[in-house]
């Protein structure tokens, strides 16, 4: 089932045409990778889905983006609700300068008002278990999250999203600051999470896209050149430009 559908999506930064007529369907409970060279618009596309581009002045968007059949580009959309549903994992792991515990319950504190201690404890435990950090961290929940390893921090950021009950995870090069072992463990986590979440990952790393994704979109200069099942894109690309990119001729 299509979780996110874009229809003739165009985006401009001032006069710069950053996304050109994007038409794509992102499937529920699958991992979709968006690949392409730097500056091709893949991060911009990702940031359309939680309207983070709104923070930049002079951005203009046309077309439609339907998430669960609601056009999220509409003026009257509830951004708070949208961003709870569509969570984002950033390139650099970025826990708040708070304790591990407080990082995870941040969303609950903001959205839930006064929650009981036991409810917060439960949220922390289930969220950390989902990202396989509970055993490692259960004895130091009240220590600063800034002392964790990069991989632990990135997992913690994912746990923070799980705690706000996101069901779409946008990942903007989530492994680019991690070493290969940590990367493979985070990829494993992504495969595990896709049973419950719709994941869209932007990556520079084609091997990663090939390894983890079910579907892949290739972007170039703001255009979505090709979009389809990963095995097709990586073994038999239809477009010459896609082939050039995945065989390493540019990028």
């Amino acid at each position, binding site marked *: 089932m299509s979780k996110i559908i874009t229809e003739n999506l165009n985006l401009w930064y001032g006069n710069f045409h950053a996304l050109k007529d994007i038409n794509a369907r992102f499937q529920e409970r699958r991992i979709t990778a968006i690949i392409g060279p730097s500056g091709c618009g893949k991060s911009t596309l990702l940031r359309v889905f939680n309207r983070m581009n709104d923070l930049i002045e002079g951005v203009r968007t046309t077309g439609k983006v339907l998430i669960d059949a609601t056009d999220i580009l509409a003026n009257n959309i509830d951004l708070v609700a*949208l961003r*709870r549903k569509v969570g984002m994992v950033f390139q650099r792991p970025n826990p708040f300068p708070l304790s591990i515990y407080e990082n995870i319950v941040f969303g609950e504190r903001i959205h839930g008002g006064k929650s009981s201690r036991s409810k917060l404890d439960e949220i922390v435990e289930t969220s950390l278990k989902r990202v396989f950090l509970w055993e490692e961290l259960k004895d130091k929940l009240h220590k600063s999250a800034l002392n964790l390893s990069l991989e632990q921090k990135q997992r913690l950021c994912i746990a923070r999203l799980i705690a706000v009950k996101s069901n779409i995870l946008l990942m903007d090069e989530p492994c680019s600051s991690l070493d290969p072992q940590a990367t493979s463990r985070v990829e494993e986590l992504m495969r595990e999470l896709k049973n419950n979440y719709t994941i869209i990952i932007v990556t520079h790393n084609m091997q990663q896209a090939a390894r983890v994704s079910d579907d892949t979109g290739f972007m170039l200069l703001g255009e979505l050149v090709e979009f389809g099942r990963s095995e097709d894109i990586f073994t038999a690309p239809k477009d010459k430009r896609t082939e050039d990119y995945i065989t390493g001729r540019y990028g």
Partner: protein
Amino acid sequence: MTRNPYRTEKIAFFFLFLATLLIVVPVGLIVVIIIQKGLPAINWQFISDMPRNGMRSGGIFPAIAGTVYLVLGAVIFALPIGVLAAIYLSEYARENLLTRIIKLAIVNLAGVPSVVYGLFGLALFVVFFKFGASILSGSLTLGIMILPIIITASREAMESVPQTFREVSLSLGASKWQTIRHIVLPNAIPGIITGTILGIGRAAGETAPILFTVAAFYLPRLPKSIFDQVMALPYHLYVISTQVPNVEEKIRYGTALVLLAMVLITNLAAIVIRYKFRKKKKW
């Protein structure tokens, strides 16, 4: 003659070091001279007693208390307004003509000579609002004077909170205000406190702004309300140094020492707080 890089290096070092030394020397001399001449006057009675014998003996307690009242009043007024304005400028204001005018006004407010603040306070608070020469008028005048210090320090503190924290918070569905309240402000508080303390130090030492708005020549009792006049240390120092004949030197320097100590201690507190928080911060 060929240039010898080692020699030019030595010459450069000499002059740079000399210039630096020249900054330290006056500070050291001021402190040493004031302590040397003022310390004999300092005892418990001097700090806790009323002035007697036309301010030629007794203590300076009402002036110390007056300065404390004025500074507290200034902070009560300036801190909330300053922090709210800083939040607006740092988090909400878009870069446009109005914002630029506001920022320019703040910079210029910091550059206004203090005696002008005094006259302004006289015209607005004492005369126009009919607060009279009172703690209220003096505090408001001092408050306006330290407003730019607090705004600038608070703004810098908030702007130094990494942008990514705001993005993450918003991406988790927090509103802009929740982001400020839960993420930006807690991380900016050390900077805000430091700026406020520096403002306190400045307000405690100024004479001109309180000259026409609150300071009493001789008032050997404590104020009963915010509409009373008070004595204040800087003005008292001026009075016993120039207006009252035959005041012992040690009393004048003792008063100066108390004032200097109050200002230095507040500044020291600001430095300690900044140091403590900087050690804790890790991003």
